[in-house]
């Protein structure tokens, strides 16, 4: 990362820590804010957070790797998550997953070459009554069919 990028991140994280406190309990909210702004938490940011919270970088890394919604590597602009819970599977989530994968030409946990979409599995959205459900960025889509799912991802920028 270039020096300017580093300085920008230092400043941003410094502000966050000032706002949220430098205790361990502020770690997750800080990481979420960084992710919101930069879409992933790069190595440098992890080390800055660790430094300011007086913990070790590897502990920050450990937290990021534990939570499925935090990333330590760049992802696509849009993240499409398909539920792989058994209820969604009964209602055809596997077919949707295959259709999405074929449409985008990528496997799950991969990103399209243009960086438009990342496909992921998720364990359960708590939407079993409206299954199958998929999560596109922050928005949940219920009772999707193959056709609606494809339509939704074609609309993504």
């Amino acid at each position, binding site marked *: 990362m270039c020096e300017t990028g580093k300085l920008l991140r230092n400043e941003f994280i410094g502000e966050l820590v000032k706002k949220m406190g430098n205790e361990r309990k502020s770690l997750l909210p800080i990481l979420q804010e960084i992710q919101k702004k930069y879409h992933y938490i790069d*190595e440098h940011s992890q080390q800055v957070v660790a*430094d300011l919270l007086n*913990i*070790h*970088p*590897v*502990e920050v*890394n450990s937290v990021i790797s534990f939570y499925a919604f935090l990333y*330590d590597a760049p992802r696509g602009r849009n993240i499409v998550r398909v539920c792989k819970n058994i209820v969604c599977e009964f209602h055809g989530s596997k077919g949707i997953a295959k259709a999405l994968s074929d449409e985008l030409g990528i496997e799950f946990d991969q990103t399209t070459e243009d960086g438009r979409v990342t496909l992921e599995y998720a364990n359960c959205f708590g939407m079993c009554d409206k299954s199958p459900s998929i999560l596109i960025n922050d928005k949940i889509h219920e009772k999707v069919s193959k056709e609606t799912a494809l339509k939704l991802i074609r609309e993504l920028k």
Partner: protein
Amino acid sequence: MEKELRSPVAQRPMNVEDPVSKTGIGAQISVELNGVKLKVDMGKSILDVCRDNNVYIPTLCYHEDLCIAGNCRMCMVEVEGMRTLQAACAFPITSPIKIKTFSDKVRKARKHTADLLLSEHYGECYSCVRNNNCELQTIARECGVDSYEFGHVCEPRFEIDSSSHAVIRDMDKCILCRRCVRTCIDLQEVGVLEAINRGYDTKISTFMDKPLADVICINCGQCINRCPTGALHANDPSDEIWKAIEDPTKHVVMQTAPSPRAAIGEEFGLPAGTSMTGQLNTAIKRMGFDMVFDTNFTADLTIMEEGTELLNRLKKALVDKDENVKLPQFTSCSPGWVKFIEHFYPEKLDYLSTAKSPQQMFGAVIKTFYAKEAGIDPKDIVTVALMPCAAKKFECNRPEMNSSGYKDVDYGLTTREMAKMIREAGLKLPDLPKTNFDEPFGDASGAGLIFGATGGVMEAALRTVYELVTGRPVPFEGLNIDVCRGMKGIKEAKVKLENCKDEFSYLEGVELKFIVAHGTANANHVMKMLIKGELEGYHFVEIMACPGGCIGGGGQPIPTSELIRKLRAKAIYAEESTMPVRKSHENPRIKFIYNNFLTDGPGGKLSHELLHTEYVKRGKYIE
């Protein structure tokens, strides 16, 4: 000066506050252990009660130096009335309970747990460094594992990380007990290792899964000493050393540090704290090493150099009123500590003594002075250092450690690897006769010997500095400076300098204040005190990276515990009390080398070239 615990409450050692009276109401609880009625102290864990009463419970993630984790589930016991089995290590007794430690349910559960651990373990026992000294192996035997009930790993799944000079990580052997994580984060406060990912995908990893050589590892090797399996082990140079011994053109010189002698017996079944100095010398000579020298000699040299440096700094501060002089002076013999300060407090490097560690001093002396005396070309000399230490392997590979014109120390060998080589040579160490070290570095003082235990450097330095300044021996009973000894994390003491010699009149009435700390967690605490300005008025700080000092080093025999470390220290102090020379400056060899080789005296020009070094500002950010 107690260290504040940095870890979150949930990870701290489980302690129930002591009741006011040990015998009063509520202080003692009646429990039934396998049908035997007992009175136990409130808050004691089931595991401790069982150990006190000779009831054996297998453990794996439990280590007495570390906080309770309770994650391996090997120590499960049945507590009457409870639906599930309980982990004995993490169950404080606070009410009258009935415990069964080997009921049918317990035995079955333990066997299953062991089977499950083995199903994830790439157990290639014959080719493993921990064969016959592996806690998982022991548990498999004790729990009656007779088949791989849940399968077995037959192919390696991970690449072995051998990037580090000191520590090699083989994650195929890892059983995720997290002892290394707790060692690195809580005991040493270095924080190299943590568990990453979740559930089935969990593994122990460095920051962003980088090779160990690229992260902020101080190479102390404490994780190796606490790993129950062979997942962590030291980088073993014994093959190259054998090759050098076989090579007729090479002159192979061994130097042995004090701590391995007090511990190597453990590798041969002797109780902890058996000193093996003479036998070890015989073994080394019989294995084909050309010379065996005593690192204590350069420990004495270190004291001369470091003591002189301290007096120079004091003079500059007191007489010249130099504002830039950094006091207190920190010792620099522990390579783990040196790398720690380079990473975490690079702006404080000026406080560190510039003297090299005894190992590196010896390397430089062997390839210059000894080479000339013996008439051997230094390029044909191979120096091997037997050390209790993993970080010494890194230290001897530092690029700046070549002041003799060659690599000063070629190989750092740990106590464990030495024991392996002795076994390979077919020698029975305890049965060997005793021999002395070789000349011209055959004599060392007791002061050099006690370098091995925490507080030893301080004690040795005080004996010399006090006597240099006042002309009288240090005012402690039998030269034993007891305030420096013992296993307290941070020790503090002072000595008043009175009736000084004329040339040291500026020190008249000065109260020499010093601190001794061991383990980098304590070192970290001392550094925080330094930053807060709480070390104003202190003159000398000894820091050893490993708990207990070198006797608890990362290259020492496994297992380790506070008791074992105390016994090793006791062996060193016992041997020291019988030494004829107990002060570094009275060692005749030291006088000899300053008269014949380092003729401009301690801290002189040649000393600075050969025996002093510079440090690298590393910082704690990884690019």
